[in-house]
């Protein structure tokens, strides 16, 4: 019982902390980000299973987290608002070639992040970018100018 309760608290605590951290893509995940993933995961495990490290207890904790994850996925599919809260919404970084400073500041993005995405889209000059969109998964989509 306590394990399941701890797993629920741990899941939502990690969810909110990861959500309020700046959005970064898996493909852009650096060693710096991996430190967070492993350290926070390890710490939550300690309080979730406590002193009971039996297979039964760990299995129950894993099942509880899996069910929670499925429930939140279901809630996201039913409600766009919950989806926006849990995953955020796409954000326009460059619109018609103009940098959206509010988004850059708010998402703590660096021009280097957009430059890296531009290189992936075979765009070599920043002025050739028409639109740059920060997707919900953290990937940056680049739309080059038609005349580029």
């Amino acid at each position, binding site marked *: 019982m306590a394990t399941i309760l701890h797993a629920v608290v741990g899941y939502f605590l990690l969810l909110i902390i990861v959500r*309020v951290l700046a959005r970064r893509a898996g493909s852009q995940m650096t060693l710096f980000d991996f430190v967070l993933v492993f350290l926070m995961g390890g710490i939550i495990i300690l309080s979730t299973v406590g*002193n009971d490290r039996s297979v039964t207890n760990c299995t129950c904790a894993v099942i509880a987290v899996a069910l929670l994850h499925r429930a939140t996925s279901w809630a996201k599919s039913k409600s766009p608002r919950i989806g926006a809260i849990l995953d955020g919404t796409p954000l*326009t970084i460059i619109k018609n070639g103009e940098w959206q400073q509010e988004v850059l500041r708010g998402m703590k993005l660096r021009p280097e992040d957009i430059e890296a995405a531009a290189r992936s889209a075979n765009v070599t000059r920043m002025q050739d970018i028409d*639109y740059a*969109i920060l997707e919900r998964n953290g990937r940056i989509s680049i739309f080059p100018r038609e005349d580029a």
Partner: protein
Amino acid sequence: MAEQSATSSIGDSVPKVGEVAVGEDLEFQRRWWQFERAIWTFFLLVLLADLLGLFGRGWLAKAKRTDSAQTVTLDYERIERASTPSIMTFHFKPAAIRNGRIALYVSEDLIKSLGAQRISPQPLTSAMGDNGILYTFPVTTTPATAEIELEPSFPGPHHFRVQVSGGQSIDASVFVVP
């Protein structure tokens, strides 16, 4: 529905920015940034409270009580953490010694609710009764101290009573955080 999604243009259902269908909701994002600022402030306050000992193991958590007859001073933590060991220390005064012995009564709550694990030094005798345990220690000189290691299992407020023979009882509470 799936067929409709497969054949309809993305731009038909997703909010556009210029000519690109993005699904952006900048108003929501602005509110979210405000929420982020609030939650980070809250996190900082949590850390500050933790440093001060509001969740145990710190300055605010430490407590000291002396009975009115000046036989014993009790050092304990008024805020403890579940499943985490801590030490409760009894500092006995000369008035506590009777016939070369100190008799210390601790209520059952201290043993069960607060999870007393062991007592040091080993008492000469332990006698149950009166909803608690009476420990007897042989003593040669003061200051003398005894320690009880606690490891509470359940969160919430827990009340306990201790008393040295010839002194007044000390009633205190410990709040155990999860």
